[in-house]
């Protein structure tokens, strides 16, 4: 049955068979706030065992924008057995919502990449000093700061000029999001940076 309907719904009808659930690292922020709430609440319905979240950050800016829904967030977070947060500052915020004994601080999963891929290898043909630049656009659109986006691009362009002229480096523009068809992907930020409207 679970094969033919959405797994979560299937499991729910099938009798709450999940023994535990692990929700991966993310930030509780403005844009994905309601998606996160939905995920947390649904998770509790389909899991009879421990529910663990690892590791999260809490964006102060995001919470300010979603101040009206803090009660809902508190309820959702209280459903978890263990909450890992990324650091001391993220730890302080959820202590207002949940029992501190359920909270714990851990290292960001980004550091774990090195354990999984120690020898990633280098790109062949790299001759000079290389600076990798990861731009973004979504922040400016999420928080209604799109009027500042051109200034951000302008400054980044200026930084690139300075790096090239004063340090003689090679610049790599690298997106850090998977291919996205919306304006919020990093690839669009790169095209904006290069002055190539899409």
């Amino acid at each position, binding site marked *: 049955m679970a094969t033919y309907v959405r797994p979560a719904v299937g499991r729910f009808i099938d009798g709450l068979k999940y023994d535990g659930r692990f929700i991966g690292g993310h930030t509780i922020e403005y844009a994905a706030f309601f998606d996160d709430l939905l995920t947390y609440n649904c998770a509790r319905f389909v899991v009879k065992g421990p529910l663990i979240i690892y590791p999260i*950050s809490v964006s102060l800016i995001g919470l300010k924008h979603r101040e009206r829904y803090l009660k809902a967030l508190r309820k959702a977070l209280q459903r978890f057995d263990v909450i890992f947060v990324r650091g001391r500052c993220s730890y302080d915020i959820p202590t207002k919502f949940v029992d501190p004994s359920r909270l714990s*601080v851990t290292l960001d999963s980004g550091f774990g990449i090195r354990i999984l891929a120690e020898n990633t290898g280098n790109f062949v043909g790299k001759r000079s000093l*290389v600076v990798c630049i990861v731009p973004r656009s979504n922040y400016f659109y999420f928080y209604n700061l799109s009027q500042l986006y051109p*200034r951000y691009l302008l400054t980044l362009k200026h930084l690139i000029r300075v790096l090239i002229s004063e340090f003689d480096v090679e610049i790599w523009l*690298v997106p*850090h999001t998977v291919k996205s068809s919306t304006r919020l992907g990093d690839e669009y930020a790169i095209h904006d940076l290069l002055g190539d409207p899409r």
Partner: protein
Amino acid sequence: MAPQNIFDSARIFNSCDMVVTSRMHAGIVSLAYGKPTLFFMPRDDVKVLDILSYLGLSEERYIIDSFNPREYDKLSVIRNLDKTVKRIAGEHMGHAYAKLYGFRAVALRYANVVGPKLRHGVVWDFTNEPLRNSTEQVILGDGNQVWSYIYIEDAVEATIIGRTETSYEVYNTGSEDWITVDEIACKSKRWA
């Protein structure tokens, strides 16, 4: 180049010498590979503070707050970013060079250096302006700007002490106290 997954990103960061990132996660991955990383982020991001805290770095030393978009006009955003980003980028490039070519590097962040041969700046203007024009003294801004100063001999001493045994280090080279422009103006009146 477009990475298809997180391992591609890791490979790219591992291949480069320095990363400038507006995405926190990208910065963390690059830090994991030991690359000098310049976070070019909007302010108030708790994640930045988290990363600093578990890397054991102080907020005062590593956060240059010049990108508070709500408080700056267009020109000042660019001017402030231009100055600070250039400076930080320079420091990180020093780190990258030191690592790549195996030499030691130290970045010294000087406060406003003052001393006998000073020929520009607020202190120079206030102590010399009254001699040329005794009727008025011009203060740029509201006079409440706070600056830290260091005497030239102390700056030289700090530069000599700053030579480090580790591969890369950053030092704030200034005094612990600070003074407002208004206070300098009052004191310079007394000196004049």
